[in-house]
C-alpha cells in the first residue's frame, strides 16, 4: 500500500509541476462551469428566467359578456400568453412549475363591471408562486391596465354608459331611502365629469375609480428544476474536470510505458495491479481535489446551495472511483501519447455530448434522454445533481451509484487484463 501511495504522490507532484496538466485539471472545469452557467442563465445571475410574454392560465368563473370581453382583451395582449383552463388544473400546474401564474375572473365580475357606480370594483384573482415577486407585480400592473382600458371602453360608449347609469339608478332605487342623497351627489359629479371630458383631463378621468381589484393567491411551487443555471453547470464542470483528469492520467500511463519508467516499476517488487492501482489512486485524488475546488467556488462565489453535503461527498467518491476505472481502460487503447489522448477525448467527448455534459439532461428530447443512459457521464451528473439540487433520496441515488460502480469496475477489470496481457506478450 505504501508503494501505491508513493507512486500516486509522485504522479500528483508531476501534475503540479506540469502547467498544462494543472490548468486542465483545476482551472478548465471552472471556466466551463462559469461559461455555460452564464450562457444558460441568459446573462443574469440565474434568479429566474425573464420571459417576454408571461405564460398564464385564464379561468373564467363568471362567464358573462363582460368577463368574456375582458378575457378577449387579455388574450390580445402581447404581454401575456393566455391559455384557458379550469381552476384545479391551473393550480396544479403552477404548483408543479409548468406555468407562471393563473388569472381567475371571479363570479360577479360582470355584475360589478355593469354596476360600476353602485358596487365594489370587479375582482380578479391571480395565483402565483410567492417567489415570483417580479412576475406577480408585472401581472398585477397588466391587469390594472387592461381593467382601466375596459372601464374606459364603457365610458367612451354612450349606450354602455346609459346602461351603466340606468343600472345604477335601479340599484339605488332598490336601496334604502337615505342613500338617494348619494344618487344626486353622484349624478351631479357625473355631470361635472362629463362637462370636463372635452379637455385632455379625460385621460385621467378615472383617477377616483378603482377599475379592478386584483387579489393575489400564493401557490407555493414544488421545486422540480434547478434553482439557478450554475447549479446545473457546476456538476457539468466537475464532469469536464474529471474527463480532463482521466485523459491526462491515461496519457501519463502511456508516457510511462514509452519512457521506460513503467518497465522499471514492473521490474520492481510490485505486481501490475499495484502499479495500475497507484495510477488510479492519483487520478482519483486529483478528480476529488479538482471537484472540491470547483464546488467551493460554486458555493461561495456563485451561491450554489448544496442540498446534501454528505450525498455530494459520497457521489463524488463514487464518480471519481468509476472514472479512475475508465482511465485504466483508455490507457491501454493507445500505444502512443497522441493516440491515447485522441482516443480519450474522442470517446469521452461523445459520452459527454450524449450524457448531458454539454446540454443539460432536462433539456434533452426523449430519444436523447434514453440514449444518454449508455454514458457514464449522465450517471455521474445525476449522482452529483441528485445531491446538489435534485434532492434525491438514497433510494433514487442508488441507481446512478450502482451504474457508475459497474462502469468503473468493468472498465478497470478490462483495462487491467489488457494491460497485463500486453506486458506478458
Amino acid at each position, binding site marked *: 500500500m505504501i*508503494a501505491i501511495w508513493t507512486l500516486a504522490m509522485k504522479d500528483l507532484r508531476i501534475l503540479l509541476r506540469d502547467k498544462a496538466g494543472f490548468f486542465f485539471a483545476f482551472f478548465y472545469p471552472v471556466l466551463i462551469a462559469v461559461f455555460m452557467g452564464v450562457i444558460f442563465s441568459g446573462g443574469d445571475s440565474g434568479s429566474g428566467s425573464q420571459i417576454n410574454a408571461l405564460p398564464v392560465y385564464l379561468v373564467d368563473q363568471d362567464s358573462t359578456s363582460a368577463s368574456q370581453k375582458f378575457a378577449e382583451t387579455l388574450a390580445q395582449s402581447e404581454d401575456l400568453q393566455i391559455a384557458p383552463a379550469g381552476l384545479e388544473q391551473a393550480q396544479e400546474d403552477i404548483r408543479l412549475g409548468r406555468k407562471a401564474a393563473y388569472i381567475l375572473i371571479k363570479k360577479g365580475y360582470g355584475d360589478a363591471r355593469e354596476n360600476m357606480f353602485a358596487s365594489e370594483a370587479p375582482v380578479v384573482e391571480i395565483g402565483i408562486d410567492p417567489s415570483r415577486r417580479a412576475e406577480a407585480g408585472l401581472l398585477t400592473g397588466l391587469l390594472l391596465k387592461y381593467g382601466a382600458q375596459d372601464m374606459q371602453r364603457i365610458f367612451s360608449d354612450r349606450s354602455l354608459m346609459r346602461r351603466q347609469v340606468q343600472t345604477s339608478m335601479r340599484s339605488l332605487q332598490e336601496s334604502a331611502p337615505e342613500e338617494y342623497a348619494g344618487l344626486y351627489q353622484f349624478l351631479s359629479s357625473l355631470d361635472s365629469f362629463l362637462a370636463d371630458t372635452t379637455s385632455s383631463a379625460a385621460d385621467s378621468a378615472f383617477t377616483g375609480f378603482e377599475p379592478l381589484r386584483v387579489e393575489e393567491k400564493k401557490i407555493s411551487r414544488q421545486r422540480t428544476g434547478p434553482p439557478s443555471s450554475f447549479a446545473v453547470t457546476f456538476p457539468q464542470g466537475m464532469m469536464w474536470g474529471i474527463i480532463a483528469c482521466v485523459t491526462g492520467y491515461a496519457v501519463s500511463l502511456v508516457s510511462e510505458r514509452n519512457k521506460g519508467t513503467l518497465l522499471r516499476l514492473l521490474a520492481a*517488487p510490485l505486481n501490475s495491479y499495484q502499479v495500475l492501482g497507484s495510477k488510479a489512486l492519483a487520478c482519483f485524488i486529483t478528480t476529488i481535489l479538482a471537484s472540491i475546488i470547483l464546488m467551493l467556488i460554486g458555493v461561495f462565489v456563485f451561491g450554489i446551495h448544496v442540498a446534501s453535503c454528505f450525498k455530494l461527498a459520497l457521489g463524488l467518491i463514487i464518480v471519481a472511483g468509476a472514472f479512475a476505472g475508465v482511465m485504466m481502460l483508455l490507457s491501454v487503447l493507445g500505444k502512443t501519447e497522441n493516440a491515447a489522448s485522441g482516443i480519450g477525448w474522442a470517446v469521452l467527448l461523445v459520452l459527454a455530448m450524449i450524457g448531458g455534459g454539454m446540454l443539460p439532461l432536462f433539456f434533452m428530447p426523449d430519444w436523447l434522454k434514453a440514449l444518454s443512459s449508455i454514458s457514464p457521464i449522465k450517471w455521474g451528473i445525476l449522482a452529483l445533481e441528485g445531491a446538489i439540487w435534485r434532492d434525491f433520496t438514497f433510494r433514487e441515488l442508488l441507481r446512478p451509484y450502482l451504474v457508475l460502480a459497474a462502469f468503473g469496475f468493468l472498465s478497470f477489470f478490462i483495462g487491467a487484463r489488457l494491460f497485463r496481457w500486453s506486458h506478458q506478450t
Partner: protein
Amino acid sequence: MITFENIRKSFGKTIAVDGISFEVRPHEIFGLLGPNGAGKTTIVNMAVGLLKPDSGTVALSGFGSPRDPKVRVKIGVAPQTLSLYDDLSAQENLECFGKVYGLRGAKLRERVAWSLDFVGLSERKNDRVSNLSGGMKRRLNLAVALVHNPEYLILDEPTAGVDPQSRIAIFDNIEQLKKDGCTIIYTTHYMEEAERLCDRVGIMDCGRLLAMDAVDALIRQHGGNSTVIIEKADGRQTIETRNPVEDILKLQKETELRGFRVLHPSLETVFLHFTGRTLRD
C-alpha cells in the same frame, strides 16, 4: 548465480529466444552481445521477471524465479531508455524508486546520498532531470538501479549516446560494483566496452546463443589470424598469420625491415564471424 535453462519465448510467429541455456556466475560481468533483434532484450526482460518464458526456467540461485516480487528486490535494472521522471529532481527520482523497493527513513536517505555520490551527481541532486545533460541522465539511470543495493545488476546498453567522459565514469562505476561483489549482465553494441569490462560474453543472433566464453578465449578460437603489415625497402607487405612474432623474426632474417604493424583479431572480428555482415533492421 543467474541460471537460464532451455528458455524459449515467442511473440506470435516470431521466435525471440530459441532454447537458450547459460548461467551468469557470481560476481562476474557477463556481456550479452548481438545485433538488433537477436533476443537480448527478451533475455533481459525475462531476467528481471517482466516476461515469463514459454518454456524453460530463469532462476536466481537461492532465491527462485524473478517473477516473484520478493526475488526482484535482489535485482537492479538500468534500461536502455532513460527511465526517469523528467519533472522530478535527481534526488526525488531516487527517493521514489527507493520507496518502491521498500526503503524508508534513514536507510532511504543514506542510500539516496550514496547513489548520488557514486555517480557524481551530489551537487546536482536538486536539479530536475529535464535540466541534466545526457551523460548525467545516464549516470542517474544507473544510480536508480543501485539505490536499493541489489546483488544482481542488469545494464541494458548503459553508455548509449554519452560523451567519452561520462562513458569512462560509467566504466569506473561498473568496475567498482564488480569489486564490491555485484553480479552484472551487460548488453551492448560496443565491442570495446565488452572487451574492457566483461569476464565472459555470449554472442546471440536470431534467438540463439552462438558462442559463449571469456573474451580472450573467444578471440583465440574464432578471431582468425592476426594481420602483420611490413614496411620493406621495396614496398609494403601484408601477412595473415597465427603467430605474428615468429613470422616477423623469420622475415627479419631474410630481408631488411623498415618497420611493421600487427593488427590482432578483436571481439568485433569474432562478432562478425558469428553474426555476418548482413545489415539488420
